[in-house]
């Protein structure tokens, strides 16, 4: 009896193996226009705004020297390995000298005054120098000493010191679009729609302010056969409910420039449109309570550990995030799997205060630190962050209240919050999300090195600083990862920041949208390069 069953199972297995994978069986199809409902971007010049909307819009039209993988190239949404873009290859001649060789024959979009001329090293030099001079993110290039274009297809960048994050910054679409100088000379900056002339997969064809932005496929894109879409239209819709209604009604394919929906919105859309594809992703960023660790009472590590032990991360995740969040959420975000050292792989005695929940121990630590009856602290924050942030502040205040720390919630106006609290200028305690960076250095050096604007907890730890500098200077990825692991081990029981569960985000679109893969970089153009419509 056993043999026929075994034979049957084997046959079934062979049949299953012989069946084509539906995903593989589908070949991308050319044509169609993808419609996205989104708010209006404040501008189109990549260097005169720090808005993710602006950078997402124009990423359709521009290329960079190097880029992140997208679509079938990416291993996961936070895959930040470096691929060639306008540079076909690059080489570290010395740890401080990086030489890029450009692709030959790549042409700008055929729009006046550039009229489809070839991209040269001088364009790259001009664009990177403009970034250094004008961009809000120009501190990313602090390590750059000189940018040169020794010949038509060679760009040489000399750094002041070895700087491992540099290629990641060059690949980030928010920073270093390659622009033609003539357009700035004619239009004064790159905000005018006619000045958006790049080498990217789509050409900005028209911009009806407040109505829509129309992109067409670039027929001369250097990656032959791509993009699959004939075009992309951004339908400007300021109101969230309107955007969701347009998605439900099939008038757009995405209700956010990256297709994002909050977990609540995704559940609502799945109820009304069960056919909709809604995939959860971890957001690359951290939610944290930050404290003035240079002042009492938070200069005492026992107090900071007590704060962390008061947070029931699992209960928080179940209650607010449908259990879909991530509880081991910092200092390296859960989504950044290439750099993350999970708490489970570290010494449990040290990670207890990083991810553990023990209110009794928290009270004991507070008593040891001289606060047997607890204390009162303000918690500065901006209440305008999207769901679930308002609940986050209340939950944190309630949790700390249970161990005797009375939290006075201090909501702030955005302008004040972003220019003071977010930059570490506050008293005692504050709370909020971090920027979703693409480089691990920003989550470590940026938030823990003295005098850095994002060092919100005023961390000044000499031993830690040595490690932070070391990982920046190590160009070998494996060796750098070891240092980054050491930093995470070191930080596990310091609680300079207290991390709260990281929330998921959904990417939703109709099932006929194929090949659209979420990527945690800021670019939209490359995601849409591989997207096609099966209808």
């Amino acid at each position: 009896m056993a043999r026929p069953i075994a034979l049957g199972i084997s046959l079934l297995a062979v049949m299953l193996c012989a069946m084509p994978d539906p995903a593989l069986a589908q070949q991308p199809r050319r044509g169609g226009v993808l419609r996205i409902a989104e708010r209006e971007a404040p501008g189109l010049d990549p260097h005169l705004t720090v808005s993710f909307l602006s950078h997402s819009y124009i990423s359709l039209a521009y290329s960079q020297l190097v880029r992140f993988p997208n679509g079938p190239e990416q291993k996961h949404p936070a895959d930040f390995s470096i691929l060639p873009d306008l540079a076909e290859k690059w080489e570290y001649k010395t740890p401080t000298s990086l030489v890029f060789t450009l692709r030959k024959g790549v042409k700008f979009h055929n729009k006046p005054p550039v009229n489809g001329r070839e991209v040269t090293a001088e364009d790259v030099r001009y664009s990177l120098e403009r970034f250094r001079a004008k961009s809000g993110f120009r501190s990313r290039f602090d390590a750059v000493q000189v940018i040169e274009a020794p010949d038509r297809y060679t760009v040489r960048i000399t750094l002041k010191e070895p700087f491992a994050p540099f290629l990641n910054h060059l690949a980030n679409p928010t920073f270093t679009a390659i622009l033609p100088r003539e357009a700035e000379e004619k239009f004064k900056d790159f905000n005018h729609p006619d000045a958006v002339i790049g080498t990217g997969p789509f050409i900005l064809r028209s911009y009806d302010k407040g109505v829509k932005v129309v992109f067409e496929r670039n027929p001369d894109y250097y990656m032959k056969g791509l993009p699959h879409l004939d075009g992309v239209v951004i339908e400007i819709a300021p109101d969230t409910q309107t955007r969701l209604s347009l998605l439900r009604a099939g008038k757009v394919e995405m209700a956010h420039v990256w297709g994002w929906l909050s977990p609540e919105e995704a559940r609502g859309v799945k109820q009304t449109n069960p056919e909709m594809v809604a995939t959860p992703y971890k957001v690359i960023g951290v939610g944290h309570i930050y404290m003035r660790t240079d002042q009492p009472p938070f200069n005492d590590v026992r107090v900071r550990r007590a704060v962390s032990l008061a947070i029931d991360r699992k209960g928080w995740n179940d209650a607010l995030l449908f259990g879909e969040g991530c509880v081991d959420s910092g200092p390296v975000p859960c989504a950044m799997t290439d750099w993350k050292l999970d708490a489970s792989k570290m010494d449990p005695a040290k990670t207890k205060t990083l991810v553990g929940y023990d209110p009794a121990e928290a009270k004991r630590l507070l008593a040891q630190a001289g606060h047997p009856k607890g204390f009162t602290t303000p918690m500065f924050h901006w209440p305008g962050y999207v769901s679930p942030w308002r609940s986050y502040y209340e939950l944190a205040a309630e949790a700390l209240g249970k161990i005797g720390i009375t939290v006075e919630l201090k909501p702030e106006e955005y302008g004040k919050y972003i220019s003071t609290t977010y930059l570490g200028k506050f008293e005692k305690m504050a709370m909020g999300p971090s920027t979703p960076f693409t480089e691990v250095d920003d989550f470590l050096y940026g938030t823990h090195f003295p005098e850095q604007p994002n060092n919100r907890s005023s961390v000044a730890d000499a031993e830690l600083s040595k490690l932070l500098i070391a990982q920046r200077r190590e160009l070998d990825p494996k060796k750098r990862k070891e240092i980054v692991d050491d930093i995470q081990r070191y930080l596990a029981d310091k609680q300079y920041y207290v991390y709260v569960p990281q929330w998921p985000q959904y990417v939703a679109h109709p099932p006929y949208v194929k090949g659209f893969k979420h990527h945690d970089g800021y670019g939209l153009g490359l995601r849409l390069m591989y997207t096609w419509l099966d209808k």
Partner: protein
Amino acid sequence: MKQYVLRRVALAVPTLFLVSVIVFAMMRLMPGDVATRMVEGHAYAPTLEALRKDLGLDRPVHVQYLEWVGAIVLKGDFGRSYWTRQPIWEEFVRRFPVTLELAALTILISVVIGIAVGIVSAMRQDTPADYIGRVGAILALSVPYFGLAVLVVVLPSIYFRWTPVWTYVPLTTDPVANLKIMIVPALVFGVTRAGPIMRIMRSALLDVLRQDYIRTAWSKGLGERTIVLRHGLKNAMIPVITLIGLQTPLYIGGSVIIEAIFRLPGVGHFFFEALTRLDYPVVQSVNLIVAAMVVGLNLLVDLAYAFLDPRIRYR
């Protein structure tokens, strides 16, 4: 008559002066500071001080005010947006037809519904038709237009996978498509604005219908239609016209939200974005332009009185 108009125009000057002072002061009193918000990430200038200087915010407040008003009065220059650097007047002119069309359609719908239901209610006082009309008016008064707008957009998308929101097309490009886009927001806004018009129409007409000259008309054997439409309605319209005049700023103010929900690229949308970004010159100048228009419109309403009731004379 000419003297009256001139006097009214002269009176508009202190009104607009007060509006300019109030708007200017209110923007400065709002929490937050445009410069700190713009300098976030240092995208507009290397330092806060440099940006303040560039925007002219480093000068004393009264100098800033005089510069703004002076440029408008002397050069007709309403300034430029802090954020986009685009001239405000150009943007206003580009967007105004959308808001004007929305306001015109809204007024048309609210007047037609309000007056028609008001007349029926007055003529059929204390009948089921009157009760239905009055309940409808109370309902229209109590439902906020922005709530109704969200329901109109969201509910059909949930139950019928359809929503009355389209990509805006200008009237001059395709009038039919344009009307299709504009009619729903105008209906939503117009129906909620019809409530007060209906109530005023009803009470004014009831009042007029009890006057002696109407009784005389009845006794002369004139028909109901002639009495109501030719003799009663014209006199009853005066408070209704006043109300429409008074409601005009609401049509502009309400467009802020209606335009955002229905994706209409009008002045309301422009104003809303400027307000959220604390774009002082845009908020100030748009407010002043709209205030000037309201003052002008009220003058037109006053002049309309003379047409409706020749006994009203201007001195």
